[in-house]
């Protein structure tokens, strides 16, 4: 499997940058063979010196020395110069491959129209590994180590070829010994790695605690409750729990290492003695003796398994994980099928028919036979207690998940038969955890409908309707200000300001033709003025658009033409604000809770 990954890496490299790959290949072969050439030239030089002693450089023997010296010099200089050039080519190749793979990863992960995989810890783990975030090793980096490993192997093989001219069986014996050494060390490393992987949940915990302590998200609570020491202690425990068995496993290789080393020592010592004996018995010259002796040592390259090999394995693992993710994409895309167009939908009604749904990996159903009609062109508010399934309903509607049982139909067509991309294109949504894009303000709004991004007037209109226009004009570079303080001239918005931008994005999508507007808690961070402003414009904003509002704020909810109360995954009340208040049920009591404090005094 690893072998095919190596090939895969080479193919990826050739696809990404054919020229650099060819160059790297050429340099690899050169650096694999040149040491052997240097050995031979050195042997020739050593062999040439003895007969030339006392003859002077001008003699025939002396000229032979000069010739050999020239050869040694040429090979040595080339070796030295090729080294840095190889590093340069590797570096360029690594960057290109990592760049290409990063976009391939983005494509693989954002390819499926469902988001189930994005909420699966296993997938998130793999994404992190593919990005090299777990150990700093990427697939691009593996190219450097792979070419290094192959060059070293080539050097060892070249040495064996040289030795075959001495005795045919010496390279066989040495080669076999080195192969055993390499295989053993690699297997030992794999055993250790397996132990590490078996503890990955603990390791992830350690990493989580590290992030928790070093990032701002939990900083206030960390300070108020004095949690720093507790975080550090737990981090240490998690880390040590992971590493202790790893250390045991690693140390268990000590005796085997000694045995393998001793075996190799006997082999190499025997070979060297044989070579030297041949030399002293004048069967071979001094030059050849030195060449063969050097070749015996050079063959050790075949048995070496060092840090670079470890990094290579890590980098290849990152590539393997990426490939697994890529393979999962077509499957996920196919599972979420449907080819029918979505143009102009919905014209009449979106209908939930006996819908059941549970999240992957959970035991209990969120919905267990949900029936609900959403009339096209109307505004519908969904209320309910925390955890009643309001956000899940919205996710199903946007087909970010497919239903488990029952069906959702749009104008009578099963949603599963409609092309998911086309349907999602019909939906404009801001979710509770809306996105803060690190791009200019204009793009943050225009992202609602990219095809109309050039329509600056429409972007401004959407911003005005969302109450975001004033804040944009106060930004240092207006619409061109990047909305991230991590970027040059970037501005940092407050939660309420961000919410207005996100709202503008959804409204821009509606103005560009989206037929369904989803607002999941659109006013949670707004201050009184902004909130009131939005309510006042609510009817205007949603006129003629199928609108679904999820909110705890009855001030928003009551403006909707129709309200449903969701409880335990079912609709328990359904009607207009007036109907529901008059009915005196759940809605009426929830509304009264919030509103009564405003009624108590006549002046309020």
């Amino acid at each position, binding site marked *: 499997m690893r072998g095919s990954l190596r090939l895969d890496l080479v193919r990826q490299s050739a696809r990404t940058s054919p020229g650099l790959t060819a160059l790297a290949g050429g340099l690899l072969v050169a650096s694999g063979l040149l040491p052997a050439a240097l050995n031979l030239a050195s042997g020739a030089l050593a062999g040439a010196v003895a007969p030339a002693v006392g003859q002077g450089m001008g003699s025939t023997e002396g000229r032979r020395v000069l010739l050999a010296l020239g050869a040694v*010099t040429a090979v040595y200089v080339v070796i030295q110069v090729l080294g840095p050039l190889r590093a*340069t080519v590797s570096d360029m190749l690594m960057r290109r491959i990592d760049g290409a793979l990063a976009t391939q990863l983005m494509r693989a992960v954002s390819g499926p129209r469902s988001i189930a995989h994005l909420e699966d810890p296993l997938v998130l783990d793999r994404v992190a590994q593919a990005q090299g975030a777990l150990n700093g090793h990427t697939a691009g980096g593996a190219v450097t180590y792979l070419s290094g490993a192959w060059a070293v192997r080539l050097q060892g093989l070249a040495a064996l070829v040289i030795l075959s001219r001495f005795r045919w069986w010496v390279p066989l014996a040495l080669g076999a010994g080195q192969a055993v050494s390499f295989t053993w060390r690699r297997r030992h490393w794999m055993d250790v790695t397996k132990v590490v992987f078996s503890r990955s949940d603990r390791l992830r915990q350690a990493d989580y605690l590290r992030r928790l302590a070093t990032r701002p998200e939990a*900083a206030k609570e960390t300070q108020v409750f004095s949690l720093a020491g507790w975080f550090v202690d737990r981090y240490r425990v998690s880390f040590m729990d992971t590493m202790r068995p790893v250390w045991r496993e690693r140390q268990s290789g000590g005796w085997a290492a000694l045995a393998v080393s001793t075996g190799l020592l006997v082999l190499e010592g025997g070979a060297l003695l044989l070579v030297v004996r041949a030399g002293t018995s004048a069967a071979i010259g001094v030059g050849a003796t030195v060449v063969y002796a050097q070749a015996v040592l050079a063959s050790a390259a075949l048995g070496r398994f060092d840090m670079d090999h470890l990094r290579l394995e890590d980098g290849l693992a990152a590539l393997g994980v990426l490939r697994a993710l890529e393979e999962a994409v077509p499957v996920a895309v196919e599972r979420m099928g449907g080819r029918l167009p979505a143009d102009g939908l919905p014209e009449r009604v979106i209908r939930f028919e006996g819908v059941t749904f549970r999240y992957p990996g959970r035991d209990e159903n969120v919905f267990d036979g949900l029936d609900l009609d959403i009339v096209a062109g109307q505004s519908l508010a969904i209320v309910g207690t925390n955890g009643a399934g309001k956000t899940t309903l919205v996710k199903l509607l946007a087909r970010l998940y497919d239903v488990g049982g029952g069906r959702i139909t749009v104008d009578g067509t099963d949603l599963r038969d409609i092309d998911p991309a086309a349907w999602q294109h019909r939906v404009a949504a801001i979710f509770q955890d809306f996105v803060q894009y690190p791009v200019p303000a204009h793009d943050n709004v225009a992202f609602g409908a990219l095809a109309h991004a050039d329509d600056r007037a429409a972007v401004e209109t959407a911003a005005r309707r969302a109450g975001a226009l004033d804040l944009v004009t106060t930004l240092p570079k207006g619409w061109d200000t990047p909305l991230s303080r991590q970027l040059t001239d970037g501005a940092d918005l407050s939660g309420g300001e961000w919410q207005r931008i996100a709202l503008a994005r959804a409204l821009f999508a509606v103005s560009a033709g989206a037929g369904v507007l989803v607002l999941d808690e659109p006013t949670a961070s707004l201050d009184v003025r902004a909130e009131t402003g939005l309510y006042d414009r609510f009817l205007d904003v949603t006129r003629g658009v199928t609108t679904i509002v999820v909110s705890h704020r009855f001030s928003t909810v009551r403006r909707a033409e129709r309200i449903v109360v969701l409880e335990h995954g079912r609709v328990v009340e359904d009607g207009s604000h007036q109907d529901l208040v008059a009915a005196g049920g759940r809605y009426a009591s929830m509304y009264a*809770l919030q509103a009564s404090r405003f009624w108590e005094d006549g002046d309020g």
Partner: protein
Amino acid sequence: MAELFSNLRAMCAVSWQADKARSIGSLVTTALVPVTRSLQAVGFGLIADGVLSGDDSKAATGALVVAGLTGANRLLDWASVTVRMRLREHTIVLLDSQVMSYIAGAPGLEHHERPEHQDRIGMIGWERWALNNPFMPIAWTLGSVVQMLATLAVLGGLHPLLLLLPLAGIPPLVIGLRIEKLWERVRQEHAEARRSMALLSELATTAPAGKEIRVFDLAEELERRYRSTFEVVDRRERSVDVRAGLMSAAGWGCFALGYMAAVALVVSRAVAGDLSVGAVVVTLSLGAQVNRQVTELVDNARWFARTTEAVGRYRWLADYSARAHAALVPADPAPVPERLVSGITFDGVSFTYPGTDAPVLEHLDLHVPAGSIVAIVGENGAGKTTLAKLLLRFYEPTEGGILVDGVDIRRFDVGAWRERLSAGFQDFAKLQFLARESVGVGSLPNLGDTVAVTAALDRGAAADLPARLPAGLDTQLGREFDGGVDLSTGQWQKVAVARAMMRENPLLLLLDEPTASLDAATEHALFERFAGQARRAAERTGAITLLVSHRFSTVRMADVILVIEAGRVLERGTHEDLMRAAGRYAELYSLQARSYR
């Protein structure tokens, strides 16, 4: 240079503290490995001379020396890798623990909220891969130097002129350092582009953004932006790569010619009969070694140059944390009172965030009587949250002081003061632990106390939560871990509120918009409880409950309402007072009330 040495010292200290035995072990094994390589050349000399003179035992000795050193080298290498990996793991735990306590333990939020500090801390997070083995380059350098000396001793024995050989190493060394500087500049130039690439890739690979990206069909656009940023970075870095490669090749070419001059010298002396053929073999077989030594020296020099910045940032953090602690040690300490008698007073408090010019609070005077429930209202940016941050001592006032029963809170030990307060925030943390832990950390001493945790959930109007979790209080929360259960935003907020309820007798309970994601029934229940509890606590300890909110339905039940505008108290009084006054409060209240009629 002085900075380099003090950085080196700091790095050695970390390694030493992490694992003394393995620090020494890694130093010895790593330094010995190259020495065994150098001495092999002597063995080769013996072989050559033995073969030429027909001396069997001399040649055999040479062969055994070479073989023995090779074996020793292999074992040492194995030991060195094993020791180094373990040392590296011990070091990373230590470094991480230190960085964690520096960041999480440093009092105040300045390091979390100032962009330039955030930049540095972010880089430290990445650099842990580079910093986790600070000892190795030192050991390697030491090994290279020892080996260099051994090599020079061998070569110098052949001819004194060969002692000049290290000069040939100067061009690659100098060029190597210049290249490193070049790269450091490019890295800084590209830091922002790389950050923006990381942000874009994060958007494509995480769930919250995943929803919008699908609905608005943004995947291709994000990928396009990533690619175009990447191409700009790559184009520039490619040209730097080519330039650096050529420079480096030229440097190494100089070195190779220098070394070959030495070989030529030895060869000519040998031809003249002054040196043996063995000497030629020794010199030649050292060629590869010398090259390796110089390579390692150049690499290590570049490593030092590169990590100076990283170590500098790490030391900055240590220093920052120490200063943050020291700044809060009271000159004239006073104990935190057991109960409040008079209350909390802001006495001419002004505050400007570090690194900014505009004051957020200006000469703020206000008194909050003991035992009261106080609501603070005001529009976005009025300074409400800042006021809370000062009370929690996340920041210290730039002018004036905050007095608790007449005692400046700067005279309290920060830890002791915080132990007597509790707080819940709008941007609460989603702590992905077991449910009991995620609540329980609100009072570490009672972490394992099921009764205390249950009581806190009850006080936080979240008593129903455990029943809705598959394993009750022992349910792992959050999707980050196997078997973890994700909560809805509102449920997470309940957990956070319950956490704030863990401390039983706080003098000050600070709630900064704690109900933004709660449903109506929970919000109502929560405030009923708050009020009742606050009154009881007030009787016992004179405790103050301080509520920041723009939900007027909640605000109106407070004893005192403060309207803050532009860093000053604009209005103050009960709901009835302020409605009668028909000022800003009445205006905002009516705005909101209108939506309910």
